[in-house]
Protein backbone atom coordinates (compact mmCIF):
# COMPACT_ATOMS: atom_id res chain seq x y z
CA UNK A 1 0.00 0.00 0.00
CA UNK A 2 1.46 3.41 -1.00
CA UNK A 3 2.29 5.96 1.71
CA UNK A 4 -0.26 8.69 0.86
CA UNK A 5 1.20 11.04 3.47
CA UNK A 6 4.58 11.27 1.70
CA UNK A 7 5.26 14.63 0.09
CA UNK A 8 5.27 14.66 -3.72
CA UNK A 9 8.64 14.88 -5.39
CA UNK A 10 9.17 18.37 -6.72
CA UNK A 11 11.17 19.38 -9.72
CA UNK A 12 13.93 21.97 -9.44
CA UNK A 13 13.61 24.69 -12.06
CA UNK A 14 16.58 24.75 -14.41
CA UNK A 15 17.74 28.24 -13.49
CA UNK A 16 17.55 27.46 -9.80
CA UNK A 17 19.50 24.26 -10.24
CA UNK A 18 22.31 26.12 -12.00
CA UNK A 19 22.39 28.80 -9.34
CA UNK A 20 22.40 26.15 -6.59
CA UNK A 21 25.32 24.35 -8.18
CA UNK A 22 27.25 27.58 -8.36
CA UNK A 23 26.44 28.36 -4.69
CA UNK A 24 27.32 24.87 -3.52
CA UNK A 25 23.80 23.92 -2.42
CA UNK A 26 23.12 20.19 -3.02
CA UNK A 27 20.01 19.32 -5.04
CA UNK A 28 18.44 17.35 -2.18
CA UNK A 29 18.64 20.44 0.02
CA UNK A 30 17.05 22.64 -2.65
CA UNK A 31 14.33 20.03 -3.22
CA UNK A 32 13.60 19.89 0.53
CA UNK A 33 13.28 23.65 0.70
CA UNK A 34 10.86 23.68 -2.25
CA UNK A 35 8.83 20.94 -0.58
CA UNK A 36 8.65 23.14 2.51
CA UNK A 37 7.13 25.90 0.40
CA UNK A 38 10.15 28.10 -0.34
CA UNK A 39 9.88 30.22 -3.47
CA UNK A 40 12.60 29.72 -6.12
CA UNK A 41 13.17 33.50 -6.40
CA UNK A 42 13.80 33.73 -2.65
CA UNK A 43 16.26 30.85 -2.75
CA UNK A 44 18.17 32.46 -5.62
CA UNK A 45 18.38 35.66 -3.60
CA UNK A 46 19.84 33.83 -0.57
CA UNK A 47 22.37 32.09 -2.80
CA UNK A 48 23.45 35.42 -4.26
CA UNK A 49 23.76 36.85 -0.75
CA UNK A 50 26.31 34.12 -0.01
CA UNK A 51 24.18 32.08 2.41
CA UNK A 52 25.87 28.63 2.62
CA UNK A 53 24.25 25.21 2.52
CA UNK A 54 25.34 24.58 6.12
CA UNK A 55 23.64 27.79 7.26
CA UNK A 56 20.44 26.67 5.55
CA UNK A 57 20.61 23.24 7.19
CA UNK A 58 21.10 24.87 10.60
CA UNK A 59 18.14 27.12 9.95
CA UNK A 60 15.98 24.14 8.94
CA UNK A 61 17.08 22.19 12.01
CA UNK A 62 16.20 25.13 14.22
CA UNK A 63 12.82 25.44 12.59
CA UNK A 64 12.22 21.71 12.89
CA UNK A 65 12.77 21.91 16.64
CA UNK A 66 9.91 24.32 16.90
CA UNK A 67 7.51 22.56 14.55
CA UNK A 68 6.11 20.27 17.19
CA UNK A 69 4.69 23.08 19.27
CA UNK A 70 4.69 26.24 17.20
CA UNK A 71 3.24 27.59 13.98
CA UNK A 72 4.75 26.73 10.58
CA UNK A 73 8.28 28.01 10.12
CA UNK A 74 8.44 31.39 8.39
CA UNK A 75 10.29 31.61 5.12
CA UNK A 76 13.66 33.29 5.03
CA UNK A 77 13.59 36.82 3.74
CA UNK A 78 16.76 38.67 4.81
CA UNK A 79 15.98 41.55 2.47
CA UNK A 80 16.37 43.79 5.56
CA UNK A 81 20.09 43.14 5.25
CA UNK A 82 20.13 45.20 2.06
CA UNK A 83 18.24 48.31 3.16
CA UNK A 84 19.90 51.53 1.97
CA UNK A 85 20.71 53.09 5.35
CA UNK A 86 24.07 54.78 5.84
CA UNK A 87 26.35 51.80 6.56
CA UNK A 88 29.89 51.65 7.90
CA UNK A 89 29.27 54.22 10.64
CA UNK A 90 31.90 54.18 13.37
CA UNK A 91 31.12 56.59 16.18
CA UNK A 92 34.03 57.06 18.59
CA UNK A 93 33.81 57.42 22.37
CA UNK A 94 34.81 60.79 23.80
CA UNK A 95 36.27 61.60 27.21
CA UNK A 96 32.70 61.32 28.45
CA UNK A 97 32.15 57.95 26.77
CA UNK A 98 30.04 57.23 23.70
CA UNK A 99 27.63 60.12 24.01
CA UNK A 100 24.53 61.00 22.02
CA UNK A 101 26.40 63.89 20.44
CA UNK A 102 29.22 61.50 19.47
CA UNK A 103 26.85 59.27 17.48
CA UNK A 104 25.26 62.21 15.66
CA UNK A 105 27.48 61.73 12.62
CA UNK A 106 26.76 61.45 8.91
CA UNK A 107 23.09 61.26 8.04
CA UNK A 108 22.29 60.19 11.60
CA UNK A 109 23.26 63.65 12.76
CA UNK A 110 21.08 65.47 10.26
CA UNK A 111 18.08 66.84 12.13
CA UNK A 112 15.42 67.94 9.62
CA UNK A 113 13.43 71.13 10.04
CA UNK A 114 10.28 69.08 9.53
CA UNK A 115 9.83 65.40 10.35
CA UNK A 116 7.89 63.78 7.52
CA UNK A 117 6.91 60.52 9.16
CA UNK A 118 3.94 59.78 11.38
CA UNK A 119 5.33 56.52 12.76
CA UNK A 120 7.89 55.61 15.37
CA UNK A 121 10.61 55.19 12.75
CA UNK A 122 14.03 56.06 14.21
CA UNK A 123 15.88 58.88 12.46
CA UNK A 124 18.24 57.35 9.89
CA UNK A 125 16.29 54.10 9.48
CA UNK A 126 14.38 53.11 6.32
CA UNK A 127 10.60 53.44 6.57
CA UNK A 128 8.39 50.39 6.30
CA UNK A 129 5.30 50.96 4.21
CA UNK A 130 1.84 50.63 5.71
CA UNK A 131 2.94 51.07 9.34
CA UNK A 132 0.18 52.67 11.35
CA UNK A 133 0.56 56.30 12.40
CA UNK A 134 1.23 57.34 16.00
CA UNK A 135 -0.77 60.58 16.01
CA UNK A 136 2.12 62.83 16.98
CA UNK A 137 1.27 66.51 16.94
CA UNK A 138 4.74 68.09 16.97
CA UNK A 139 6.55 67.68 13.65
CA UNK A 140 8.50 70.90 13.28
CA UNK A 141 11.97 71.26 14.72
CA UNK A 142 11.34 74.81 15.90
CA UNK A 143 8.43 73.59 18.00
CA UNK A 144 10.61 71.55 20.35
CA UNK A 145 14.30 71.80 19.53
CA UNK A 146 17.07 72.92 21.82
CA UNK A 147 20.72 72.57 20.81
CA UNK A 148 21.71 71.38 24.27
CA UNK A 149 19.12 68.58 24.58
CA UNK A 150 21.46 65.64 23.90
CA UNK A 151 24.18 67.00 26.17
CA UNK A 152 21.67 67.68 28.97
CA UNK A 153 20.38 64.12 28.69
CA UNK A 154 23.91 62.73 29.06
CA UNK A 155 24.56 65.09 31.95
CA UNK A 156 21.37 63.96 33.68
CA UNK A 157 22.33 60.31 33.30
CA UNK A 158 25.89 60.87 34.50
CA UNK A 159 24.88 63.03 37.44
CA UNK A 160 21.98 60.91 38.65
CA UNK A 161 21.60 60.33 42.38
CA UNK A 162 19.68 58.01 44.64
CA UNK A 163 17.62 59.54 47.43
CA UNK A 164 17.46 56.29 49.39
CA UNK A 165 21.21 55.93 49.82
CA UNK A 166 23.00 59.12 48.71
CA UNK A 167 21.38 61.34 51.34
CA UNK A 168 22.88 61.04 54.84
CA UNK A 169 19.43 60.58 56.42
CA UNK A 170 21.03 59.75 59.76
CA UNK A 171 22.34 63.33 59.93
CA UNK A 172 18.81 64.67 60.37
CA UNK A 173 18.25 65.71 63.98
CA UNK A 174 15.01 66.31 65.88
CA UNK A 175 13.86 69.88 65.28
CA UNK A 176 11.62 72.23 67.27
CA UNK A 177 8.00 71.67 66.27
CA UNK A 178 7.67 74.94 64.34
CA UNK A 179 10.77 74.24 62.23
CA UNK A 180 9.76 70.64 61.57
CA UNK A 181 6.30 71.77 60.50
CA UNK A 182 7.84 74.44 58.27
CA UNK A 183 10.22 72.13 56.46
CA UNK A 184 7.50 69.49 56.09
CA UNK A 185 5.18 72.08 54.52
CA UNK A 186 7.94 73.19 52.13
CA UNK A 187 8.61 69.55 51.24
CA UNK A 188 4.89 68.91 50.67
CA UNK A 189 4.81 71.82 48.24
CA UNK A 190 7.98 70.78 46.37
CA UNK A 191 6.97 67.12 46.20
CA UNK A 192 3.57 68.02 44.78
CA UNK A 193 5.07 70.48 42.30
CA UNK A 194 7.59 67.90 41.06
CA UNK A 195 4.87 65.33 40.48
CA UNK A 196 2.85 67.82 38.45
CA UNK A 197 5.86 68.56 36.25
CA UNK A 198 6.52 64.86 35.71
CA UNK A 199 2.86 64.28 34.83
CA UNK A 200 2.67 67.23 32.44
CA UNK A 201 5.83 66.28 30.60
CA UNK A 202 4.75 62.65 30.42
CA UNK A 203 1.64 63.83 28.61
CA UNK A 204 3.75 65.67 26.03
CA UNK A 205 6.25 62.87 25.30
CA UNK A 206 3.93 60.94 22.92
CA UNK A 207 3.18 64.17 21.06
CA UNK A 208 6.80 64.65 19.96
CA UNK A 209 7.72 62.94 16.72
CA UNK A 210 10.52 60.39 16.59
CA UNK A 211 12.86 62.42 14.45
CA UNK A 212 13.83 64.51 17.46
CA UNK A 213 14.84 61.74 19.82
CA UNK A 214 17.39 63.97 21.58
CA UNK A 215 14.54 66.07 22.94
CA UNK A 216 12.44 63.02 23.81
CA UNK A 217 15.37 61.55 25.78
CA UNK A 218 16.07 64.84 27.50
CA UNK A 219 12.43 65.17 28.56
CA UNK A 220 12.43 61.55 29.73
CA UNK A 221 15.26 62.44 32.11
CA UNK A 222 13.31 65.48 33.34
CA UNK A 223 10.29 63.26 33.99
CA UNK A 224 12.46 60.84 35.93
CA UNK A 225 13.94 63.69 37.93
CA UNK A 226 10.44 64.94 38.68
CA UNK A 227 9.78 61.51 40.14
CA UNK A 228 13.03 61.71 42.11
CA UNK A 229 12.08 65.09 43.59
CA UNK A 230 8.60 63.85 44.42
CA UNK A 231 10.28 60.97 46.23
CA UNK A 232 13.02 62.82 48.07
CA UNK A 233 10.86 65.64 49.44
CA UNK A 234 8.17 63.18 50.52
CA UNK A 235 10.83 61.10 52.27
CA UNK A 236 12.15 64.14 54.09
CA UNK A 237 8.65 65.03 55.29
CA UNK A 238 8.10 61.55 56.64
CA UNK A 239 11.45 60.76 58.28
CA UNK A 240 11.76 63.04 61.28
CA UNK A 241 8.61 62.80 63.34
CA UNK A 242 6.59 65.18 61.16
CA UNK A 243 4.42 64.45 58.15
CA UNK A 244 2.93 66.06 55.10
CA UNK A 245 1.36 69.50 55.25
CA UNK A 246 -1.29 71.37 53.32
CA UNK A 247 -1.87 70.87 49.60
CA UNK A 248 -0.84 73.78 47.36
CA UNK A 249 -3.48 76.10 45.91
CA UNK A 250 -2.33 74.97 42.47
CA UNK A 251 -2.92 78.14 40.45
CA UNK A 252 0.54 77.97 38.96
CA UNK A 253 0.08 74.28 38.15
CA UNK A 254 -3.04 75.16 36.18
CA UNK A 255 -1.14 77.41 33.77
CA UNK A 256 1.06 74.44 32.92
CA UNK A 257 -1.56 71.74 32.72
CA UNK A 258 -3.72 73.98 30.51
CA UNK A 259 -0.94 74.65 27.98
CA UNK A 260 -2.14 73.70 24.49
CA UNK A 261 1.16 74.15 22.73
CA UNK A 262 4.54 72.56 23.52
CA UNK A 263 6.47 75.83 23.51
CA UNK A 264 3.78 77.32 25.76
CA UNK A 265 4.31 74.49 28.24
CA UNK A 266 8.10 74.88 28.08
CA UNK A 267 7.94 78.66 28.54
CA UNK A 268 5.70 78.43 31.59
CA UNK A 269 6.98 75.23 33.22
CA UNK A 270 10.65 75.01 32.33
CA UNK A 271 11.53 78.69 32.16
CA UNK A 272 9.16 80.57 34.49
CA UNK A 273 8.14 77.98 37.09
CA UNK A 274 11.46 76.13 37.13
CA UNK A 275 13.45 79.36 37.44
CA UNK A 276 11.44 80.19 40.56
CA UNK A 277 11.72 76.64 41.91
CA UNK A 278 15.48 76.66 41.31
CA UNK A 279 15.84 79.64 43.62
CA UNK A 280 13.67 77.89 46.24
CA UNK A 281 16.18 75.05 46.13
CA UNK A 282 19.05 77.52 46.50
CA UNK A 283 17.45 78.98 49.63
CA UNK A 284 16.61 75.51 50.91
CA UNK A 285 20.29 74.60 50.61
CA UNK A 286 21.46 77.75 52.34
CA UNK A 287 19.01 77.53 55.24
CA UNK A 288 18.94 73.76 55.68
CA UNK A 289 18.87 72.59 59.30
CA UNK A 290 21.28 69.73 58.66
CA UNK A 291 23.73 68.33 56.11
CA UNK A 292 21.02 65.94 54.88
CA UNK A 293 18.56 68.65 53.89
CA UNK A 294 21.43 70.69 52.51
CA UNK A 295 22.46 67.89 50.16
CA UNK A 296 18.84 67.22 49.13
CA UNK A 297 18.37 70.82 48.08
CA UNK A 298 21.80 71.05 46.42
CA UNK A 299 21.23 67.96 44.31
CA UNK A 300 17.69 69.06 43.44
CA UNK A 301 19.17 72.42 42.47
CA UNK A 302 21.50 70.73 39.98
CA UNK A 303 18.61 68.85 38.37
CA UNK A 304 16.41 71.92 38.23
CA UNK A 305 19.15 74.01 36.59
CA UNK A 306 19.28 71.45 33.78
CA UNK A 307 15.53 71.72 33.27
CA UNK A 308 15.86 75.49 33.00
CA UNK A 309 18.79 75.08 30.58
CA UNK A 310 16.62 73.08 28.19
CA UNK A 311 13.71 75.50 28.49
CA UNK A 312 15.64 78.67 27.93
CA UNK A 313 17.69 77.21 25.05
CA UNK A 314 14.43 76.10 23.41
CA UNK A 315 12.96 79.60 23.60
CA UNK A 316 16.14 81.01 22.09
CA UNK A 317 15.97 78.47 19.27
CA UNK A 318 12.34 79.29 18.52
CA UNK A 319 13.00 83.01 18.38
CA UNK A 320 16.07 82.54 16.23
CA UNK A 321 14.14 80.51 13.67
CA UNK A 322 10.60 81.86 14.00
CA UNK A 323 10.93 85.48 15.02
CA UNK A 324 7.20 85.99 14.41
CA UNK A 325 6.45 83.85 17.49
CA UNK A 326 7.89 86.47 19.87
CA UNK A 327 4.54 88.03 20.83
CA UNK A 328 2.98 84.61 21.19
CA UNK A 329 5.68 83.59 23.67
CA UNK A 330 5.30 86.86 25.56
CA UNK A 331 1.60 86.06 25.97
CA UNK A 332 2.38 82.62 27.39
CA UNK A 333 4.73 84.21 29.89
CA UNK A 334 2.09 86.82 30.82
CA UNK A 335 -0.42 84.08 31.53
CA UNK A 336 2.10 82.06 33.50
CA UNK A 337 3.23 85.04 35.55
CA UNK A 338 -0.37 85.96 36.45
CA UNK A 339 -1.08 82.50 37.81
CA UNK A 340 2.28 82.32 39.53
CA UNK A 341 1.40 85.56 41.33
CA UNK A 342 -1.99 84.06 42.20
CA UNK A 343 -0.07 81.29 43.91
CA UNK A 344 1.00 83.84 46.51
CA UNK A 345 -2.41 83.21 48.04
CA UNK A 346 -0.78 80.01 49.22
CA UNK A 347 0.02 81.43 52.63
CA UNK A 348 1.05 78.02 53.93
CA UNK A 349 4.08 77.74 51.66
CA UNK A 350 5.08 81.39 52.11
CA UNK A 351 4.84 81.24 55.88
CA UNK A 352 6.60 77.89 56.02
CA UNK A 353 9.48 79.29 53.99
CA UNK A 354 9.55 82.34 56.27
CA UNK A 355 9.86 80.17 59.39
CA UNK A 356 12.58 78.06 57.74
CA UNK A 357 14.53 81.09 56.51
CA UNK A 358 14.08 82.98 59.77
CA UNK A 359 14.97 80.03 61.98
CA UNK A 360 11.69 79.71 63.89
CA UNK A 361 8.13 80.97 64.30
CA UNK A 362 9.25 83.67 66.69
CA UNK A 363 11.49 85.05 63.93
CA UNK A 364 8.92 84.90 61.17
CA UNK A 365 9.17 88.61 60.38
CA UNK A 366 12.87 88.22 59.69
CA UNK A 367 11.98 85.18 57.65
CA UNK A 368 9.42 87.11 55.63
CA UNK A 369 12.11 89.65 54.79
CA UNK A 370 14.30 86.83 53.55
CA UNK A 371 11.33 85.44 51.63
CA UNK A 372 11.07 88.79 49.86
CA UNK A 373 14.81 88.58 49.09
CA UNK A 374 14.19 85.16 47.65
CA UNK A 375 11.39 86.57 45.50
CA UNK A 376 13.68 89.34 44.29
CA UNK A 377 16.33 86.82 43.32
CA UNK A 378 13.72 84.66 41.57
CA UNK A 379 12.62 87.60 39.44
CA UNK A 380 16.21 88.69 38.77
CA UNK A 381 17.34 85.24 37.59
CA UNK A 382 14.18 84.77 35.51
CA UNK A 383 14.79 88.08 33.71
CA UNK A 384 18.49 87.33 33.18
CA UNK A 385 17.71 83.97 31.60
CA UNK A 386 15.04 85.48 29.37
CA UNK A 387 17.49 88.17 28.36
CA UNK A 388 19.90 85.44 27.20
CA UNK A 389 17.07 84.07 25.08
CA UNK A 390 16.67 87.58 23.57
CA UNK A 391 13.49 88.32 25.54
CA UNK A 392 13.44 91.58 27.50
CA UNK A 393 10.45 91.37 29.83
CA UNK A 394 11.28 94.13 32.27
CA UNK A 395 8.55 96.38 30.90
CA UNK A 396 5.91 93.71 30.37
CA UNK A 397 6.53 91.80 33.56
CA UNK A 398 3.47 91.27 35.78
CA UNK A 399 3.25 94.32 38.08
CA UNK A 400 3.45 92.20 41.22
CA UNK A 401 6.76 90.79 39.99
CA UNK A 402 8.01 94.05 38.51
CA UNK A 403 7.98 95.50 42.00
CA UNK A 404 10.91 93.24 42.79
CA UNK A 405 13.02 94.81 40.06
CA UNK A 406 13.06 98.09 41.98
CA UNK A 407 15.87 98.68 44.44
CA UNK A 408 14.77 97.70 47.98
CA UNK A 409 14.05 100.63 50.30
Amino acid sequence: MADESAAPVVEIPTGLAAQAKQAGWPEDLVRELLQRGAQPADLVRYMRMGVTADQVRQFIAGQAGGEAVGPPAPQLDLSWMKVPTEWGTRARPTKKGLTMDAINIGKYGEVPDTWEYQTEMPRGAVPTLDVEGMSYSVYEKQELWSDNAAALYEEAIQRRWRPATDIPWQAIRPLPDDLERAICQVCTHLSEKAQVEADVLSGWEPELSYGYHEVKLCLASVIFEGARHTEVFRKRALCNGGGLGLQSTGWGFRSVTDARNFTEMVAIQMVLQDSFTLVQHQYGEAFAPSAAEQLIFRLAMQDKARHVAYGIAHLKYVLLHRAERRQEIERYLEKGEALLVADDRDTATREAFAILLGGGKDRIQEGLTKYEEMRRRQVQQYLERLSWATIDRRERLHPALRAYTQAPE
Partner: protein
Amino acid sequence: MPTFPSVEWFKVVGELVNKDDAFRRLGTVDARVGVKVGAQLFEVTFEAFECTGAREIGEGDLRDVDFWLEQTPEEWREMIENIREHGSADLHHTLNTIDLSKPEGFARSYDGYRRDTFYRFNQSLQHFFDVSSKIETRFTIGARS
Protein backbone atom coordinates in the same frame (compact mmCIF):
# COMPACT_ATOMS: atom_id res chain seq x y z
CA MET B 1 52.61 73.66 51.39
CA PRO B 2 50.83 75.43 48.51
CA THR B 3 49.86 79.03 48.83
CA PHE B 4 46.36 80.34 48.25
CA PRO B 5 45.74 81.78 45.78
CA SER B 6 48.16 80.33 43.26
CA VAL B 7 48.13 78.13 40.18
CA GLU B 8 49.98 75.56 42.26
CA TRP B 9 47.21 75.47 44.90
CA PHE B 10 44.50 74.82 42.30
CA LYS B 11 46.63 72.19 40.56
CA VAL B 12 47.31 70.34 43.82
CA VAL B 13 43.58 70.27 44.62
CA GLY B 14 42.86 69.28 41.00
CA GLU B 15 45.25 66.33 41.25
CA LEU B 16 43.50 65.23 44.45
CA VAL B 17 40.02 65.25 42.90
CA ASN B 18 41.29 63.50 39.79
CA LYS B 19 42.35 60.57 41.99
CA ASP B 20 39.11 60.70 43.97
CA ASP B 21 36.50 58.09 43.00
CA ALA B 22 33.85 60.06 44.88
CA PHE B 23 34.42 63.03 42.58
CA ARG B 24 34.10 60.82 39.50
CA ARG B 25 30.88 59.29 40.82
CA LEU B 26 29.29 62.74 40.92
CA GLY B 27 29.31 62.65 37.12
CA THR B 28 30.65 64.74 34.30
CA VAL B 29 31.53 68.40 34.76
CA ASP B 30 32.07 70.80 31.91
CA ALA B 31 32.87 74.22 33.21
CA ARG B 32 35.44 76.96 32.94
CA VAL B 33 35.45 78.54 36.37
CA GLY B 34 37.08 81.85 37.16
CA VAL B 35 38.35 82.59 40.65
CA LYS B 36 38.86 86.20 41.67
CA VAL B 37 40.82 86.88 44.84
CA GLY B 38 41.42 90.58 45.16
CA ALA B 39 43.31 91.58 42.04
CA GLN B 40 44.42 88.03 41.28
CA LEU B 41 42.48 86.00 38.74
CA PHE B 42 42.62 82.30 37.90
CA GLU B 43 40.80 79.94 35.60
CA VAL B 44 40.14 76.35 36.69
CA THR B 45 38.90 74.04 33.96
CA PHE B 46 36.78 70.93 34.34
CA GLU B 47 36.13 68.52 31.53
CA ALA B 48 34.30 65.19 31.64
CA PHE B 49 35.35 63.55 34.91
CA GLU B 50 38.35 65.62 35.86
CA CYS B 51 39.91 68.93 36.58
CA THR B 52 42.01 69.51 33.49
CA GLY B 53 43.94 72.61 34.38
CA ALA B 54 44.49 75.86 36.19
CA ARG B 55 46.13 79.06 35.01
CA GLU B 56 46.41 82.70 35.87
CA ILE B 57 44.25 84.97 33.70
CA GLY B 58 43.54 88.65 33.17
CA GLU B 59 40.37 90.67 33.71
CA GLY B 60 39.50 90.45 30.01
CA ASP B 61 39.51 86.65 30.16
CA LEU B 62 36.49 86.69 32.46
CA ARG B 63 34.33 86.99 29.36
CA ASP B 64 35.47 83.53 28.30
CA VAL B 65 34.76 81.65 31.52
CA ASP B 66 31.31 80.27 32.32
CA PHE B 67 31.27 82.18 35.61
CA TRP B 68 33.72 83.40 38.17
CA LEU B 69 33.69 83.21 41.97
CA GLU B 70 34.44 86.53 43.60
CA GLN B 71 34.86 87.54 47.23
CA THR B 72 37.43 89.40 49.24
CA PRO B 73 40.74 87.72 50.12
CA GLU B 74 39.62 87.61 53.76
CA GLU B 75 36.39 85.85 52.80
CA TRP B 76 38.28 83.34 50.67
CA ARG B 77 40.55 82.62 53.61
CA GLU B 78 37.57 82.18 55.93
CA MET B 79 35.94 79.75 53.49
CA ILE B 80 39.05 77.62 53.00
CA GLU B 81 39.89 77.58 56.70
CA ASN B 82 36.32 76.55 57.50
CA ILE B 83 36.62 73.66 55.05
CA ARG B 84 39.97 72.65 56.55
CA GLU B 85 38.50 72.76 60.06
CA HIS B 86 35.37 70.68 59.31
CA GLY B 87 36.63 68.41 56.53
CA SER B 88 34.10 70.07 54.23
CA ALA B 89 32.19 73.34 54.22
CA ASP B 90 29.85 73.69 57.18
CA LEU B 91 26.22 74.72 56.67
CA HIS B 92 27.14 78.40 56.40
CA HIS B 93 30.14 78.21 54.07
CA THR B 94 28.94 76.26 51.05
CA LEU B 95 29.40 77.88 47.65
CA ASN B 96 25.64 78.36 47.35
CA THR B 97 25.29 79.83 50.83
CA ILE B 98 28.01 82.35 50.12
CA ASP B 99 26.36 83.12 46.78
CA LEU B 100 23.09 84.00 48.49
CA SER B 101 24.83 86.09 51.13
CA LYS B 102 25.99 88.59 48.53
CA PRO B 103 23.59 90.91 46.70
CA GLU B 104 25.73 90.69 43.58
CA GLY B 105 26.34 86.97 44.07
CA PHE B 106 29.48 84.90 44.62
CA ALA B 107 29.15 83.30 41.17
CA ARG B 108 29.10 86.03 38.53
CA SER B 109 29.02 85.94 34.77
CA TYR B 110 28.51 88.05 31.70
CA ASP B 111 26.24 85.30 30.37
CA GLY B 112 22.92 84.41 32.03
CA TYR B 113 22.95 80.90 30.55
CA ARG B 114 26.53 79.99 31.32
CA ARG B 115 26.21 81.25 34.87
CA ASP B 116 23.75 78.42 35.50
CA THR B 117 26.59 75.91 35.23
CA PHE B 118 27.35 77.06 38.80
CA TYR B 119 24.07 75.37 39.80
CA ARG B 120 24.25 72.43 37.37
CA PHE B 121 27.63 71.28 38.65
CA ASN B 122 27.37 72.67 42.16
CA GLN B 123 28.02 69.45 44.04
CA SER B 124 31.18 68.74 42.03
CA LEU B 125 32.46 72.28 42.53
CA GLN B 126 31.70 72.02 46.24
CA HIS B 127 33.56 68.70 46.33
CA PHE B 128 36.55 70.32 44.63
CA PHE B 129 36.88 72.96 47.34
CA ASP B 130 36.02 70.46 50.10
CA VAL B 131 38.94 68.28 49.01
CA SER B 132 41.25 71.17 49.88
CA SER B 133 40.68 70.16 53.50
CA LYS B 134 43.26 67.44 52.85
CA ILE B 135 46.09 69.89 52.28
CA GLU B 136 47.68 72.53 54.40
CA THR B 137 47.31 75.94 52.86
CA ARG B 138 49.50 78.96 53.37
CA PHE B 139 47.86 82.34 52.92
CA THR B 140 49.82 85.33 51.74
CA ILE B 141 46.78 87.54 51.56
CA GLY B 142 43.97 88.01 53.99
CA ALA B 143 46.45 87.32 56.77
CA ARG B 144 44.91 87.90 60.16
CA SER B 145 48.04 89.12 61.90
